């Protein structure tokens, strides 16, 4: 099992956000997590990446047999968990290529490997950057500094492609992208799909899933997964809207 979430509860300050999430992700699977605003989608991705400010009040998260919640954010990253941010941070003064290299070397050091060879690294980065339709100059600019929304998201995918994580969590990666940028991002993600690598796509809209076909779709509402299905569930949601789910929940209650 790549990831096993059981009965996860989490809150921000005194406000409960996640109220009993259960989710199993096997290697190679793509899971889409959809839901209305405020359903807890982003909280789930942040809790998995280890962001502070969230208190896990009960439940467990097991990542490849380890207790993920016990690990510091940087350990999670080095162990292969990658969060593509909804709003990637701008860091003027540190070049994009420097961050890529620092991140890769942190991971390699963790695995007991030597630092990446400078020439090999450049070759790797240049190859990846072309496939994401980004200019090479982009590497020498400050991290995300002055990047457009689309460039920031592509930069997240570039980092992902260089770091080759085991579990990729994409937090609303489609938000703010026009259709061309969305296709580039989706192609980047699809190129990374392997039998071992798993993805969790957190999204409000179905349209990302036209380009990245999920194995499973889960609907999150009020901090719980209220419905799961295959890719067709996303289409149904697109047609009927989230109100339909909420009505169903009300009927059950």
């Amino acid at each position, binding site marked *: 099992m790549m990831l096993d979430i059981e009965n996860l509860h989490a809150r921000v300050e005194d406000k409960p956000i996640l109220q009993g999430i259960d989710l199993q992700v096997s290697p190679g699977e793509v899971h889409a997590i959809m839901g209305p605003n405020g359903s807890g989608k982003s909280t789930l991705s942040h809790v998995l*990446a*280890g*962001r*502070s400010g969230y208190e896990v009040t009960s439940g467990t998260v097991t990542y490849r047999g380890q207790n993920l919640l016990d690990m*510091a*954010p*940087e350990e*999670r*990253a*080095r162990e292969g968990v*990658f*969060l593509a*941010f909804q709003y*990637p*941070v701008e*860091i*003027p*003064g*540190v*070049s994009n*290529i*420097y*961050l890529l*290299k*620092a*991140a890769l070397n*942190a*991971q390699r050091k*963790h695995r007991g490997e030597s630092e990446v060879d*400078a020439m090999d690294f450049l070759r790797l980065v240049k190859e990846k950057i072309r496939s994401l339709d980004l200019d090479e100059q982009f590497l020498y600019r*400050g991290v995300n500094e002055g990047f457009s929304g689309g460039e920031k998201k592509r930069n997240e995918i570039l*980092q992902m492609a260089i*770091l080759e994580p085991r579990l990729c969590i994409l937090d609303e990666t489609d938000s703010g992208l026009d259709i061309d940028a969305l296709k580039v991002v989706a192609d980047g993600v699809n190129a990374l799909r392997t039998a071992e690598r798993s993805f969790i796509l957190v999204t409000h809209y179905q349209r990302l899933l036209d380009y990245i076909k999920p194995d499973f779709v889960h609907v999150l509402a009020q901090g719980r997964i209220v419905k799961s299905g295959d890719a067709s569930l996303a289409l149904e949601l697109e047609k009927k809207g989230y109100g339909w789910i909420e009505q169903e929940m009300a009927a059950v209650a």
Partner: protein
Amino acid sequence: MSPGPNPDYCEHFNALGEQLPGAGSTWVNNARRMALAQFDQQGFPSPRDEDWRYTNVSAIEKKRFKPLIPPGDAAADAGWLKRYRLNDAWSLVFVDGHFSARLSDVDDVPEGVTVQAMSAALANPPAAVEAEFGRVVGQTSHHGFVSFNTAFFTDGVLLHVPADTVLSRPVQIIHIASEPEAATNLRNLVILESGAQAALVETHLSMESAGSLAVSITEAVIRERAQLDGYLLHGASERAFRFGGFYVDVGTAGHFNHTNLSLGGLLVRNEIHVDLAESGQCALDGLFVGQGRRHVDSHTRVRHRGAHGTSRENYRGVLSDRSRGVFQGRIVVEPQAQKTDAQMNNRNLLLSDEAEIDTKPQLEIHADDVKCAHGVAVGQLDPESIFYLESRGVDPVSARNMLTFAFANTLVDGISLAGFRDIAQDALLALFPEAGIRKDWL
């Protein structure tokens, strides 16, 4: 209140007497004697003076640093110097305020251009020096460091560029303080005739052990359409005291650009005062980094005295441990300076509960058709940015250092003179060893 006369300093002056440069020249002697008398009256500045409110220099007063004629340049090691020397520049090296011909390189200066040690220039002072010496500083600053420097300066640089001449290489002043307990005084004079262009790099350093006072005063006269690009790197040891003053008179449509990197020393004050004539432009950038118990004060003043002038100021402070930073920026727009466009910005990063920043932007506007703005920010590292780096596998200590370095580096990164940017980046990196940043990847 005056702190009383300084009998020691009068004695020092009498002892040095004939050995000070320009001793054979009546006007130089007079200037020195008047300054000494003035210093005797005023002493070093007191926090009672509004301009010195946040910077108490009583430690300097108490220490009674001794002006001296330095013994020589043996303390300076050419290998060590290499780290700070620009590759392609005319360089003048001073050890404890004393010109070292051995370590300097002023070969092949173009015809008509003067790049000379002040001690040599004052042996037979040109008329231009007599006309300009003390004039620009006299328009703006009259405190004790100025009179102290005028009385005691042992050397400095004279840079005189004739009209419409563009210097092909920068002029670099390197000063190294090595004698403990000493007061060193450099006095520089820059005259750019109309349409001339030059770059002046000042590098002030000290040996590890030198707890000395280095006072450096530079006056620059930039005539019509001329341009001076000034760069300052202060990287002295953590026991060093410094007062640095840069006073500039910019003529019609002249340009002055300055980058002030204050990265070392224990108690440091830098003043940059600029007077702008009609259509004059200036850009003042600065970075001050406080670590340990450092106190670093950046004092800028831009006076728009002609219409259509432009000034841009961008200062950043990084303060950690128990350090203290001061930024006082003042923009004065005289009544006739209509259509002035002035902007001043100061951003500070406070990295510890015990660090302190006093920032005081001031606009004094006497004209009615102007565009003036200032902005000040004091903040801490952004937790979101720290998390972003951690989520890429960077440990929290490196992440914090990386972000701190990045905040400072944005300023250094923008330096146009590549050779100086390179030296500055090395000096900056040395302050953040834990950022784990290697230069080849910047």
